[in-house]
């Protein structure tokens, strides 16, 4: 029961955050120098066209008035039409966001699959060759820019070995997954490095703790000590880190999507910002804010389950 009320409290906390994000995004995009009309008409626009388009888009209205229209529409579930692409924003988001979610989810899974076992290998062989090797390799992964890592993987595994397609997206779900393996690995590399370092350090800390010595003294098998006592406690800070990294994973997705030619939301966001496509920027921000909030909520719940003291 305390867990349930904890969750409820956290959900309620999300509401004001959400309203805040809505207002901030709306105002910020309008404070950016440059406007949608400049973006669509470009250098060749004559004043009469600019005036006409601003009027068509309602951008000649005062910002508070625009906000009332916007808020009213959002509440009724209408995110408007894209200024540049002339299609409903909701349809665009539903088409592009799942791609990015799948990419980041795969990246997250790959990062964990790489980080957790290797963190154990490194921590339990502290200061020895395996530790140095794991840390060395991850140091390289961490210091390589995402676009460069992506290009290296593309050149080696796609163009040379032909194990994977050279960018692009699939035609069905399995094909999509296949197309996402390389980009997700690219995205996972730096995250895996961060997670591995963090987890390695906490494992070293936990392994030396009194209760682990006690468990060992009790004669518990090493496997049980490792999973029930060491991993569970060592994971707490890594889970936090993982949750916080979701935002940056989404950020890294922008670059990955460009290098691998994947039609995801990251690229849509960048194109929309360069095109000052206000409705798309607003819609995507709302959707991503919602997802990140949910991810944080999930992290908190997982946290509470790992460490029941947090609920109180």
């Amino acid at each position: 029961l305390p867990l349930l009320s904890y969750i409820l409290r956290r959900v309620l906390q999300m509401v004001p955050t959400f309203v805040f994000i809505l207002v901030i995004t709306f105002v910020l995009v309008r404070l950016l120098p440059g406007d949608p009309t400049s973006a669509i008409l470009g250098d060749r626009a004559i004043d009469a066209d600019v005036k006409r388009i601003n009027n068509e888009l309602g951008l000649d209205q005062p910002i508070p008035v625009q906000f009332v229209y916007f808020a009213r529409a959002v509440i009724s579930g209408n995110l408007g039409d894209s200024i540049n692409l002339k299609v409903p924003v909701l349809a665009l988001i539903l088409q592009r966001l799942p791609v990015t979610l799948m990419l980041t989810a795969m990246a997250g899974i790959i990062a964990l699959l790489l980080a957790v076992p290797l963190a154990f290998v490194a921590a339990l062989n502290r200061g020895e060759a395996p530790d140095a090797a794991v840390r060395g390799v991850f140091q390289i992964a961490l210091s390589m820019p995402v676009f460069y890592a992506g290009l290296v993987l593309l050149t080696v595994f796609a163009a040379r070995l032909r194990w994977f397609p050279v960018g692009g997206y699939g035609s069905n779900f399995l094909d999509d997954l296949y197309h996402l393996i390389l980009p997700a690995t690219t995205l996972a590399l730096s995250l895996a490095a961060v997670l591995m370092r963090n987890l390695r350090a906490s494992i070293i800390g936990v392994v030396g703790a009194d209760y682990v010595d006690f468990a060992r003294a009790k004669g518990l098998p090493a496997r049980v000590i490792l999973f029930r006592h060491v991993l569970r406690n060592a994971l707490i800070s890594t889970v936090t880190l993982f949750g916080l990294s979701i935002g940056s994973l989404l950020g890294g997705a922008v670059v990955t999507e460009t290098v691998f030619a994947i039609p995801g939301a990251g690229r849509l966001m960048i194109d929309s910002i360069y095109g000052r496509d206000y409705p798309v920027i607003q819609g995507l921000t709302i959707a991503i804010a919602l997802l990140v909030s949910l991810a944080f909520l999930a992290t908190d719940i997982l946290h509470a389950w790992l460490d029941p003291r947090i609920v109180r």
Partner: protein
Amino acid sequence: MKVLSKAVLGVAMLAASSVSALAIERGGTLVYGRYADSLFLDPVLNDANVDIWILNNLYDTLIEPTDDGQGLRPGLATAWKLAADGMSVTLTLRDGIAFSDGSPITPADVQWSLKRAANPKNGIWNFIVSSIADVTTEGDKTVIIKLKQPDPTILIALTVFNTSIMPMKAFEASPGATDADKAKSFAEHPIGSGPFAMQSWTRGSSMKLVRSEHYWAKGEDGKPLPYLDGIDFELVPDDNTRILKLQSGGLDGAEFIPYSRVAELKADSNLNMILFPSTRLEYVSMNVRPTVDGKDNPLSNEKVRQAMNYAVDKDAMIRVVTHGVGTAPTSFMSATTPLHAGDKPIYPYDLAKAKQLMKDAGFPNGFETDLLILAGNQDESGIGTTLQQMWSQIGIKLDIEQADNPTRTQRYRTANFLMRMGAWTDDIADPNERASYFVYSPNIQALHSGWKSDAADKLFDDSQKEMDPAKRAAMYAQMQQIYNSTGPIVPLYETPYPVALNKKVHGFLQIPLGNNIFASTWIQK
């Protein structure tokens, strides 16, 4: 230069169709890598090259530009006649023409399409056909365009994308209350009479076109075009990935090869690296108002502008920024723009002359000024640093300021800049579009520079009514002379369109206006 450019054009076209001696093979789908997706495939309401440059594959015009982009040949109309008083054009439609859905093209479709294109409330291209007063039809093959005044460019205007013929009934039946709303739904699944028809379009990923069974033009084998079964446009925004995909066989062709990789791809035995002549000019444009932001502006001095032109070593710039791909400009009008005049590069590098001009202008020690470049654009930052170095030789301290496109455009429009980088390509095979923006002050104050020449303005006004081609050419020669010697720009270089194709692809053409022509493209099996 004119002769030279035609020679270059000839070579490029030869390269594109070099194997016309080979027997043409029909069938197959061409996969073409694009750097950016289309936005809005309405011929009248679009505003970007990503749309314009492929529209001709979906839609068709009454008259077509020739392959060099300079002449006319029949399209949906087989004949046209300009009235003796220049006040009307009578066009005869081709027999048996139809849209890709099989419905016949009627004079009513033509009438409706042209009126929509000329409506001043529609889009930003209506100026191209602003001389149209009315369009009427006669019988089932004749369309008469009535003009407000004689217009020397009206026939050329009928080759431009915005005068594409659209199916009136299908458009009007599209959901939506207004023309703009109907256009949104229509343009998602456009129906035209071009060589291809839209099969599917996944935004941000791919666009699939299939051959239209109703296209009128015939191929070399006497059967209807196109040769291809279809085209898959794949969106690969990253230059390196696009090239990698082309080299590994995932693409049959790729556009916008960066200049830095042209030489490498030329050496690739599997590829055909083609530089299609374009109308593209890269230039610095200046604000020449006496004061900007309350401060005195030395750029208002004609001698200063000339000095800055002489101080730029174009050949070095071309080597550094375009890796030798560009050519030195001979006028503000590209060598491929009709009525271009000038046979040698303007402002050959002459530092002594530049220094003298600065002295004469009263700035022997130079001054500080500012150049606005596009944030993250490699070419522009290369140009910026090169100019910084070159102009420092005449004492000018150049500050480089970065901005993204909408910011820069807005500052440009409100004349809140000193200098900015610019690039231009023509959309119509006539110099009047470029001249109206660069020279003619009533349009956008000569690139928002504040520059104004009454003589040049008058030449432009007169040339818009002059029906005698020789006299019109003379007017343009004079206009170029005035602008090139006193104008508000520093022309830097002209560049072609770099396209790389797999060796088995033949007959692809990108005309100087940028249009990608796939109608006669074929793949060798």
